[in-house]
């Protein structure tokens, strides 16, 4: 039996052993988070500490913002007020007509036996801050589990779709913007009714994919949600086409769009209530179930995965 001399200084495990332990732990966390998305509990626990601190860090900015608006000149406010009043008057005519048109539309749809368009409602939320990471096009809003926000809810502002709630914490929620690389929105071109899916590029722009090179899409075309995914209600503006590249080497055109909503700016947004799940007819449902995930597209899978997380 050989005796080891007692250590003079207690230093704990060797640095290299510690390093390999922590690196292994971090890599394991990365894999579990990226592949299985099973660490939401850990995230929520840590967020109880980080969100108050983040809030604290944003207090000075808010203070300057408030101070700025406090000292805003009276004239400018009066101007703005007058402008808003004028805009309201101008909109009243359209609004009144649209209410009547909506009722008429509903009646006609009923007559035709088409499913009625659902009313959408929601709750207003304030954007707290945006993520620091240049990769993550995400914002954090001040409504969470306490306000019954669930993952998957669409988020809009006064001009169009902003994004989708992807993570919910007790008091705040994380919204993935439509410009995020992982976000896809099913859309249709207003002018032609052409349906497709628009993907975020991660650079503040979006790309309309799977459109044939000879399809009728022009610069300035407005894309609205098609509502086919059962998540985003139909008819909300999403983006505007700004640039079209059609290369004969590819069968699809490359169509770049910019979001219509003030996606990258701080403002108030509205979280729409989740739509009730669509019920398929018996025969169709059994067919879909038997086919399984094989037939559903990539974007559909991604969306389902995202929904499953909550």
């Amino acid at each position: 039996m050989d005796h080891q001399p007692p250590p003079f200084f207690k230093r704990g495990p060797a640095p290299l052993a510690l390093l390999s332990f922590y690196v292994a732990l971090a890599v394991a966390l990365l894999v579990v988070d990226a592949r299985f998305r099973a660490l939401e509990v850990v995230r929520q626990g840590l967020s109880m500490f980080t969100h108050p601190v983040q809030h604290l860090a944003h207090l000075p900015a808010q203070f300057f913002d408030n101070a700025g608006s406090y000292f805003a000149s009276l004239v400018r406010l009066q101007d703005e007020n007058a402008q808003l009043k004028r805009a309201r008057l101008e909109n009243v005519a359209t609004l009144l007509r649209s209410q009547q048109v909506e009722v008429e539309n509903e009646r006609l749809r009923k007559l035709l036996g088409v499913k009625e368009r659902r009313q959408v409602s929601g709750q207003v939320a304030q954007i707290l801050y945006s993520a620091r990471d240049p990769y993550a096009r995400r914002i954090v809003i001040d409504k969470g589990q306490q306000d019954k926000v669930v993952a998957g809810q669409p988020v809009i502002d006064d001009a169009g779709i902003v994004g989708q709630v992807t993570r919910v914490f007790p008091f705040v929620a994380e919204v993935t913007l439509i410009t995020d690389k992982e976000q896809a929105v099913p859309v249709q071109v207003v002018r032609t009714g052409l349906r497709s899916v628009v993907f975020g590029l991660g650079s503040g722009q979006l790309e309309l994919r799977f459109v044939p090179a000879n399809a009728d899409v022009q610069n300035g075309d407005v894309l609205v949600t098609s509502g086919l995914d059962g998540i985003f209600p139909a008819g909300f503006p999403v983006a505007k086409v700004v640039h079209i590249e059609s290369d004969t080497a590819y069968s699809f055109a490359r169509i770049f769009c910019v979001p219509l909503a003030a996606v990258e700016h701080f403002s108030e947004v509205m979280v729409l209530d989740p739509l009730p799940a669509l019920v398929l007819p018996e025969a169709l449902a059994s067919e879909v179930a038997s086919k399984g995930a094989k037939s559903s597209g990539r974007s559909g899978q991604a969306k389902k995965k995202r929904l499953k997380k909550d």
Partner: protein
Amino acid sequence: MQTSYSSSRILLPVRPWFIGFTLLTALLLNFLPTSVWPAVPDWLALLIVFWSVREPRLVGMGLAFVFGLVMDVADASLLGQHALAYVLAAYGGAALSRRILWFPLGQQALQVFPLLLLVQLVQLAVWAVVGADFPGMAYLLGPLFATLLWPSLTFLLLLPQHQAVDRDDNRPL
């Protein structure tokens, strides 16, 4: 307590609460809405490297890991992304601490730059594996700016340790 190249003066031992305070301040600075400006350094990475070079016995990989996780949650990035980067930086800082402290401040900064660059590159690698594009060279400007801050940061953070052992009201500092 380390003697440096420029002076053989023995500093006071650092107070652990001061390290905690500076790290938390760095966390707050990281949380500021400065993401729109280019070349804002990752303050937490800078502070973790600083303390792991100065006090490798007090600030180690465990602390770096915890702060990394906090940053991951706050940034909505993949869990473990910042943690991995910070742990590697802390290890590098501790391993090189004897050597780095031997040099004058300017050359110390030069040796710290690769560590800070490593923090960004590890995060780039993580994102590349997940499948994201390169965000542009501006992403790598942050470490450069942090490196320029190294001498002044050293001066500032070592001020508490430069105080006299026995207080004398008639002597400044």
